[in-house]
Structure formats: structure tokens, C-alpha cells
């Protein structure tokens, strides 16, 4: 069987499982599509009560609601997908599915790539129905282009994150005894390192370096610079080069880390009860 057909098969399986479940449980669908608007309302309430909108626009050259909605969208999609990935092995274990996955011929990288991809379709739809109309309303044609760019960059950020997350999963679940608790430390850490709400250029050096090692953080910086109108071509190429370079560099680490974790599982016996 060719590698491509293996990948297409697992992609089909994950998409099928996800969409079947979402359409069956309509409230998830409704929640997902309402989320960005709820976020917007929240941002507006906080924004108007805290500071001056004018000052924000003067300083950054962008309306705060646009800036925060775009950032919120980016964060929701990237962290949502990485969360899905981080939880997935625990969820599969809990359902007793792991042994059947281990004996399947699917390369682990393919499966970890296939998990977030169907979610990106949903992210695309929410982006097109929330961010896009709002930015067109604010900035016209320029808003259309900019919003499409933000959406595409968000999708890229999610995909470049996958091998890094795989590497993390292998390490934390191999060495972390009380499995899911580790996530409570990891998730806020990732949130900070991504630099969405705490821009990178404000970070102390150590955090800055750590952040630079997380592939999507470069895309996050690109999105922020785009929004405040300070992204030129060379710099954006650099940022995307870094993100994609790290993505490729993490693939062997991710695959190795997952195989380490699996090996460790096989030593203690894959849980079946």
C-alpha cells in the first residue's frame, strides 16, 4: 500500500469520525460557530471599560476589537488543535482503543497530522463567517485581503505545531507519571510561549529563546505585525522560513518521541481493561 493512500485513509477516518459526531451533536456545532462572536462581545465589553479606544488605535494603528478578535481566533484554533492532539492519546487509552491503533499500519506522524486537519475545515468556516465580514466592514477591500491572510496564517500555525506537539506528547507521557495533570502546567506555558497575548518582543531573553523554538510563535508574530501594519516581505519570509524550518526539524524528534512512548507502553503492557 502506498504511503499516500495510507495517509488519505487515516485522514478520511479522522474526518469521518469528527464530522459524524459533530453533526450528530448539534450543540457542539452551534457552540463552535458562536464562539468567535461571543469572544467579540466579551472583548468589546472589556475593551470599552478598560482603556481608551483612541489611544489603542493611535499607538498600534488598528482597532482593538479587530486586533483582539484576530488574536483570539488564532489562539482558539492553534490551542484548540494542540489540545485535541495532547488529549487524544489519553482519550484513546481511556476508550481502550490504543491497542487497535498500535497494530494498525498507519505511521504515527500521519495520524497526528490527520487529527487536526479536519478541525481546520471548521476553523476556516468560523474564520470566514466572523473575522472576514468584520474586517471588511472596518477596512473594506484591504480588510478582505488581510482577514484572508490571517485565516491562512492561522491554519499554517496549526500545522507547523504538530511535530512539536508529538515530541512533547512522547516526553510528557513517558516520563510524566500522573498523565493528564502534566497538561495543567503545559497548556498555560504554551499559551505564553506562543506570544499571542504577550508579544514576543516584550519577553525576557530566556523566554524569548524558548518561544522562538515553538514553531507557531513565528506565525503568531507575523499575524500581529500584519495587523498593526508592520510586516514587510523580507521579515515575513524570515518568520515563515523559521516556522517551516522548525516544523521539518521537529518531525524526526516527534516521530522518535512517539516511538519512545509506545515502546515504554509495550514494556508495561498496553492497557486493555
Amino acid at each position, binding site marked *: 500500500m502506498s504511503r499516500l493512500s495510507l495517509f488519505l485513509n487515516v485522514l478520511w*477516518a479522522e474526518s469521518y469520525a469528527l464530522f459524524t459526531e459533530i453533526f450528530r451533536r448539534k450543540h457542539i456545532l452551534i457552540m463552535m460557530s458562536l464562539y468567535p462572536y461571543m469572544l467579540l462581545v466579551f472583548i468589546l465589553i472589556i475593551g470599552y471599560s478598560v482603556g481608551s479606544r483612541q489611544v489603542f488605535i493611535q499607538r498600534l494603528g488598528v482597532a482593538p476589537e479587530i486586533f483582539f478578535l484576530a488574536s483570539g481566533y488564532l489562539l482558539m484554533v492553534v490551542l484548540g488543535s494542540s489540545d485535541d492532539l495532547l488529549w487524544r492519546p489519553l482519550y484513546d487509552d481511556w476508550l481502550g482503543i490504543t491497542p*487497535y491503533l*498500535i497494530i494498525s*499500519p498507519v505511521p504515527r506522524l500521519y495520524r497526528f497530522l490527520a487529527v487536526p486537519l479536519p478541525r481546520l475545515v471548521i476553523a476556516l468556516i468560523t474564520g470566514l463567517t466572523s473575522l472576514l465580514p468584520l474586517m471588511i466592514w472596518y477596512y473594506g477591500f484591504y480588510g478582505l485581503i488581510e482577514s484572508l491572510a490571517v485565516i491562512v496564517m492561522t491554519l499554517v500555525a496549526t500545522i507547523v505545531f504538530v511535530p512539536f506537539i508529538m515530541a512533547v506528547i512522547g516526553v510528557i507521557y513517558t516520563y510524566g507519571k500522573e498523565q493528564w495533570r502534566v497538561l495543567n502546567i503545559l497548556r498555560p506555558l504554551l499559551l505564553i510561549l506562543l506570544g499571542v497575548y504577550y508579544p514576543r518582543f516584550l519577553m525576557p531573553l530566556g523566554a524569548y529563546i524558548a518561544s522562538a523554538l515553538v514553531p507557531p510563535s513565528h506565525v503568531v508574530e507575523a499575524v500581529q505585525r500584519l495587523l498593526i501594519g508592520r510586516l514587510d516581505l523580507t521579515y515575513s519570509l524570515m518568520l515563515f522560513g523559521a516556522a517551516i524550518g522548525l516544523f521539518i526539524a521537529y518531525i524526526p524528534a516527534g516521530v522518535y518521541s512517539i516511538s519512545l512512548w509506545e515502546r515504554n507502553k509495550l514494556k508495561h503492557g*498496553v492497557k486493555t481493561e
Partner: protein
Amino acid sequence: MKQEVIVAENLVKKYVTKKRKGLLRGEKQVVEALRGVSFKIYRGEIVGLLGPNGAGKTTTVKIISTLLIPDSGDAWVMGHHVVREAKRVREKIGIMLTVEKGFYNKLTGRENLEYFAALYGLSGEERRRRVEYLLKLVGLEELGSSDRLFEEYSLGMKARLGFARALLRDPPVLLLDEPTLGLDPPSSRRIRELVKKLAHEEGKTILYTTHNMFEAEIVCDRILLINKGRIVAEGTPDELKNMIPRLKTINIVVKGDQRVGELIKSLGIEKYEAKPIDGLLSIRINIQKPEEILDPLIKNFVGNGYEIVSLKIEEPTLEDVFIYFAGKTSR
């Protein structure tokens, strides 16, 4: 020539667990799950791994399924080593590890099968047809439950679905860990019939674990008796029974003279137990083939003025078999 399909050589597995004792102190516990298990299973054979709870059945199945690495010893499936060539082994096997879990709760039986079929490399029309065929084969279609959510399934339906999954790739080897545990008679019968058909008509090789003697006897061509991590006996169901000397018990209760010794000995029976109960006499005779002496026994008692109050032939239980073999192999 019989073709060796599954070979296990001297498998040893210890589980080390830490038992929490208070906040900081932990106590290491070592469970010797397998203490040198060896066997061979040939093509087209159904071999039962029969043993009580904790005997090491699941551990053995996991090792053969490449889901557990033994501490020492080797095993091969169709010539491929389960540790060094795990990938090749995985292509050849279908597994069923638990009855009640292992699927997505929010998907229907059909959707779950489609999901795993895709993972196992089936696509398009082939996948759809295989899933359809298997749903019919295991009887989920006739129960009308192919399109119900897995979380609504009864144990019997779950087991059928799990069995169907094991067959998705039409593998030559099936490894089934207590596939009928807790099922109602129709479901367990369906699975047992399918197991037999797959082995005897399609030549699949099947390792089947159970702690149910009755089941092992009707399903398996050969039985490996496992206890405390060791294979203590092996053979066809009949061979195993004949290895146990005191196979059946005649329990006869009579009214009459308490001195029955001569009368019983005259039938050529040396070993028996006689106990007076409420003025009656309860006699227990352990014997291989009770039907051979039943007639003379009854005639003898009646002829000598005894009244027969009750007569029972007790089949040996699983426990008898174990007690016998466990006693023989006690460490």
C-alpha cells in the same frame, strides 16, 4: 506436514508495580505473570488457553499480539518475531482484547467499523463492502443494531462488533482474549460458531482464551491449561480429561445396612467414601466411566435389600481439573 503458525518459547514476564504506602513510601511489588510459557499452534487450529483469573492468559495474548514485550523468551507468528518484526506480525493478526470497550461511544457500530477499516488500509467500495459483510456475519444487521450508537450497545452487541473488527483485514491469525466473557447465550453461541467456521473452513489459526471449561471443550481443538504463569497440561479436551484419574463421581444415597464395603468391593471398586447421614448412607465413588458399573451397582444394592434414595453422577468441574494439575505442579 503441520504448519507452525504461532510459536512461543519460554516466555517470562514480571510486572513491577509500586504500591503507595502513605505519602512518600512506596513498596515494590513483583508479580510473576508468566514463568516460562512454551507452546506451538498449527495452521487451522483453535487452541484454547484455559486458566483461572490471574493465570497469565491476557499477558500471553498481549505478547503474541506485539502489545507487550516479554522479559525473556521468544515468540513468532507465521515465522515473524513478535518483538523484532512486530510490524510484520501486526499485518497478520486480528485481535479482540476486551468485550466492553475499544470503540468510539458516539459513533454507531457501522461508523466505528468504517473508521478502523480505513485505519487498517481499506478504502472506497472495498471498505464499504467489507463492513457490510462483517455486520451481517456477526449478526448485528439482523439485530437491527448496525446503526445504533456504540454507547447504547449491549455487551453481546459490543462483542460482536469487536469480533467483526478483528476480521476487518481478513487476517490468517486471530487472537481472542475471553471473547464471550459475560455474553448471553445467543451472542456467545454466534461467536463460537464463527470461530469454528473460520478455523475449520477457512484455515485461520486461532488462539482463544477462556476460564470456562465447558466453552473450551466445545470450541477448542486443543487446550493449553495455564495456571500461575505456567502451562500445566495440554491436549485435546478428551486427552485432558483422561489425564485426570478421578474424573467423575457417583454419589449414591441408600437406606439399609451400614456395612457396604464388601458389596462395593465385589464390583472391583477399591476407592470410595461412605458417610452416614440421618440414618442413610451416602457413598461417593470416583471413577472414569461410571456408565460401566452403574447397572451392576444398582442391581447389587437392590438385590441385597437396599433402598436407593438418590443417585447422581457428578461431572468434574473446572476446579477439579485445576486442583489436580495445580497440585501436581505446586512449587
